[in-house]
């Protein structure tokens, strides 16, 4: 149990070290539409997306859990939101 908690902390911390990356922006955007989604669940959902970038059906264990928890957003909406956030931090628009 302690190992699991500490490992989760490792994962969260390593992503936090990436400064104001798209992950923190994505977390904020998801919480805007789904306040009850926990930070850990959102970040693990990002892991699911990153592990299977071509998967469009939210099959990952955590992202499917997030979709189930949030009434305001479905799988495609969540993936679109992720894509939008990545777009904001892509440098395609100057000054963003």
């Amino acid at each position, binding site marked *: 149990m*302690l190992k699991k908690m500490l490992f989760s902390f490792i994962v969260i911390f*390593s992503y936090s070290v990436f400064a*104001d*990356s798209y992950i923190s922006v994505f977390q904020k955007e998801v919480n805007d539409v789904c306040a009850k989604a926990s930070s850990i669940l959102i970040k693990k959902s990002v892991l699911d997306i990153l592990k299977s970038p071509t998967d469009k059906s939210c099959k990952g264990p955590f992202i499917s859990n997030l979709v189930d928890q949030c009434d305001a957003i479905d*799988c495609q909406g969540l993936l679109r939101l992720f894509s*939008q956030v990545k777009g904001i*931090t892509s*440098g*395609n628009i*100057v000054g963003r």
Partner: protein
Amino acid sequence: MSKNYFIKIFSLGLIFSLYSEASTSQMQSEINDINDRLLNLELRSLARRLDLGGRFHVRYTNLKNEEYENDTNPDKVQNFRMKLDLNLNANLNSNLNFYSTLSMAKSFNESIREGTPLSQAAWRDYIGTVSYEQGPALWVNRAYIDYKIPSTDLSFFIGRLPTIEGPPQHFYEQRERLGTYPLLSYNMILDGLGFDYNTSKYLPKDHELRIRYLYTPTGFVNRASKNKQARTLNPDGSSRKLDSYDNFSTVMIDYKLKKLSWMEEFTFIYHYFYVANQKVNLLGFFDGYSSLRNDFQASSRVQSFYFEFKRLFNLPFDLAIAHAMNREKAKGDLYYEVATNVFSPAGIANGRTSGHGTLISLAYHLPFEFMLNPSFGLEYFRSSKDYLMRDFASDDLTGFKAQMGRYYHVYWFQPTPQGPNLRLGYIQHQRHYNFAASGAVSAGSQQRIREYYVGLSLDF
């Protein structure tokens, strides 16, 4: 209490403390191990500051070009081409980012070529790889610093800027906005600097308004002697110095409104640019400017309006409407040697011209999850005589949005499970006018081009 009782208690205490010590020691060892692994992860994360990603796409095009009505011998062109974009971005701190894209774009196995490649043109800087004529070499299509000035809402940026593939090109493959400038305004790569001011804090929630100024001057370089101005020749053959840069400035208003009750997102972009007294012909039909006698000057103003409606009326479709208006002014001429020491003007059209173009783009996202939500798209474009659009990065083979005429485009975008995405499309273009070599617009054209294409794309 008996002595045995105390011995038992003592022994139990000793055993318990020894066991506890062993457990504590083991736990401490595990914690140290986890700390060490955490530190390694953190170090690797910090050391690897670059965020690497990109896109690869391949397209087959089959095109039929009827130069005039009832053309009995139309040109039939087949083309396989590919493009690779490698994005290397670095988020150095919460205020400072660096963005770059290395690109390669080419046709398959190009053996024989007619005409001069754009890569050798005087304005090759504006092209990068996007003309698909640069061969397998990697070119830098983007490289700029983006710095948010601390404690302000102002950002400063400088470098090779993301001025191509702007909206609504992102519609075609369900992507987010790909470039800063709306597509109809300008579709070439520009180097420059500028400021972006975010006024959103003065607006209600979910409103975002940015005002941008960009300075992307046209440069005239003396490659023979870098500490001297470039020179050209007056009509009488005397030398004339050129200023190092001509003013080329852009002002933009970029507005976004999210989470409306009847639409997911609304975007409005106003874009205005002014190119002053350009000393090269904007059409770039010649090279070797320094040895060409001329008194030519041209300037251009373009303004465009772009409206985008995402998930309009909460239905699964996106709509974009863009309108661009250009005003060109030209005076002077080029003088070619027609006999020894006899120069004759080329006959470049002088005076003022103005034109406009309108693009409507619609993407419908089919709500079929079992098919991975493909998109069906429609586009219609119409432009007037004297419409002028700088475009070297067009998505299609011919660059229809830069022509004077009418164009229709239908496409189907199909995501695949675990694989590259597929896009099929058909374009029909009717050209109403052509540019002549002098820059003037020739009267009437019945040219019709039909283009079928199949493309595969992969984002990584």
